């Protein structure tokens, strides 16, 4: 396929999905709730009817839902104005930005570790199909699949804190807050061990499965037989001919799996009281802080959609079949 067409199609699809998410967000938070004023200012705030009316006008809630209110909301969101959190009394955008870094750190670590381990293990399992390595790897991923993420977190939390003396939660010990970097960094690393381990185990099974089926598919191709006929050893065939072909779908699949990554972060941050977006999402849920919930959803969904689009673009650089033409 022509590369430009391919890119245009992918980008168009991402934009459509983005639009759907935005509309969904608008409908869920502005249209469905009975009283829009309540949705904006909070349920338990006492205000007089006059103030309500004033607010209604201030927020443009007296105007038609569509297109006026929708366009206003759209304008606000695109400027990063996601409303004010009821529970924190701070602008949602500000809260989100503050938590984003922590989450990226946790997810990033978990992803890198699990991709390296999972891809290597999956490669081995697919290559040495039906051997002990394969059985072991598949059993691992089967169990990783059936374990609820949060429960794995709880178990690791209990085991790690009891036997290894690892911290039970947070990012940094309260006593270390404000200390110089060389004291803080080791402490942060210490806090990161258990949540990272949980995420790694969780994602690893996934990448292993992806890599296993991908490599098996590639190893069944004609050009692998050609490479063998050339006199290459299995290892050479694997490294020179199979690896790149097998890794290609991984790029796309990593992106598709991002949604799942986000779920993992919500559970793990909740269990380890890790101060990131996921934990905040859960808090907002419990406190019924709708503006915060809405903002976080918008941010997460948009990030995942954009990451998918990036993966598609990256793919065009990796696969010569799309790259040329």
């Amino acid at each position: 396929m022509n590369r430009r067409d391919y890119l245009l199609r992918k980008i168009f699809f991402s934009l459509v999905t983005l639009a759907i998410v935005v509309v969904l967000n608008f409908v869920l938070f502005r249209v469905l709730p009975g009283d829009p004023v309540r949705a904006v200012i909070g349920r338990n705030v006492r205000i007089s009817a006059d103030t309500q009316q004033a607010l209604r006008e201030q927020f443009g809630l007296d105007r038609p839902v569509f297109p006026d209110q929708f366009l206003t909301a759209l304008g606000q969101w695109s400027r990063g104005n996601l409303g004010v959190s009821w529970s924190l009394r701070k602008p949602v955008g500000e809260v989100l930005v503050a938590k984003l870094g922590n989450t990226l750190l946790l997810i990033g670590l978990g992803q890198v570790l699990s991709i390296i381990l999972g891809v290597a293990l999956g490669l081995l399992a697919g290559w040495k199909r039906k051997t002990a390595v394969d059985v072991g790897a598949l059993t691992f991923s089967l169990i990783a699949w059936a374990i609820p993420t949060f429960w794995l977190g709880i178990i690791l939390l209990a085991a790690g804190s009891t036997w290894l003396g690892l911290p039970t939660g947070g990012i940094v010990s309260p006593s270390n807050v404000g200390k110089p970097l060389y004291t803080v960094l080791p402490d942060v690393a210490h806090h990161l061990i258990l949540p990272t381990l949980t995420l790694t185990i969780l994602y690893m099974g996934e990448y292993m499965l992806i890599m296993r089926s991908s490599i098996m598919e590639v190893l069944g191709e004609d050009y692998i037989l050609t490479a063998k006929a050339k006199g290459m050893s299995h290892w050479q065939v694997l490294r020179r001919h199979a690896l790149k072909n097998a890794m290609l779908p991984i790029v796309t699949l990593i992106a598709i799996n991002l949604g799942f990554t986000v779920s993992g972060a919500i559970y793990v941050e909740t269990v380890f009281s890790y101060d990131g977006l996921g934990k905040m999402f859960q808090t907002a849920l419990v406190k019924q802080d709708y503006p915060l919930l809405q903002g976080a959803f918008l941010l997460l969904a948009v990030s995942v959609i954009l990451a998918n689009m990036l993966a598609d673009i990256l793919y065009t650089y990796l696969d010569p079949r799309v790259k040329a033409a």
Partner: protein
Amino acid sequence: MTSLPLLRVRNLSSEFVTTDGTVARALDDVSFDVHPGQTVGLVGESGCGKTTTLLSIMRLLPVSARITSGQVLFNGTDLLGLSEADMRRCRWKELAIVFQGAMNALNPVMTVGEQIREAILLHDLMDSSHATRRVDELLDMVGIAASRRDQYPHQYSGGMRQRAMIAMALACQPSLLFADEPTTALDVMVQAQILELLQKIQKLLGLAVVLVTHDLGVVAEVCDAVVVMYGGKVAENGPVDEVYNHPRHPYTQRLLEAFPDLNRPAGSLATIPGTPPRLNALPPGCRFAPRCHKAFDRCHIEAPVETGLGRGHTAACHLLEKTEAAK
């Protein structure tokens, strides 16, 4: 032929173990010779074991298959007795193969030039810069401009990909080339060009070629000897002139009766009523008996053995054993 055979296949038998556990005897007692510089045609209906023969010789069968007996003597060395490492060194350097339906035989994410170069470097034939020059020579030999060296397979047409495969097969100057239906899936014009190219190269390099094809016309035109296979066995084997002028096996006779037939599209064998035997449920006796117009009682009970007919011509049929015995 007075020269020593380059390749002697002796009583080669292979089988597939299918997923339901039954055994399909894909090759049974296959024997034939290939002399240096000779072109041997391997013909037979689809599924008769042509590809399996080539893969068995190169020891490239899938894991579900195994070679059960026989010898593959290449320059006197039994390839089946080599260690895997020795066999790897022998592949491509001595025996190269162009696969059937080679459309997907090139790696899509590697340039064509790199794939050819890789074969040269793998066998330590020359250093990297010389290898690149050699790639250009090879491409030139098969009629591809050197400027297309750094393109990817998908940028090549079907015919060009097949030419590139041939160039790749020649990379290490093998003494024997297997070409497994090198022209299927190409259009007629291109088919002719590829065959011409093969012939040209064969003459130029003094290469021995085993050409698998469905086209008896091609065999008549290109080959010195022909091996006719049926149901995993060699039915008839001999110099092309001998076999075409005096076909002795009923199967070959049937194939050649319809030849030359200008109405039949090139590249397909004459159709003989009936279907080839299922390899996991072989008929007792001669494998061709259910379809043979000359079959008699003994054919359904006892398998015929290969009978020498002189001048390098052999065939496996009870009718011939009788006449031989009568002599």
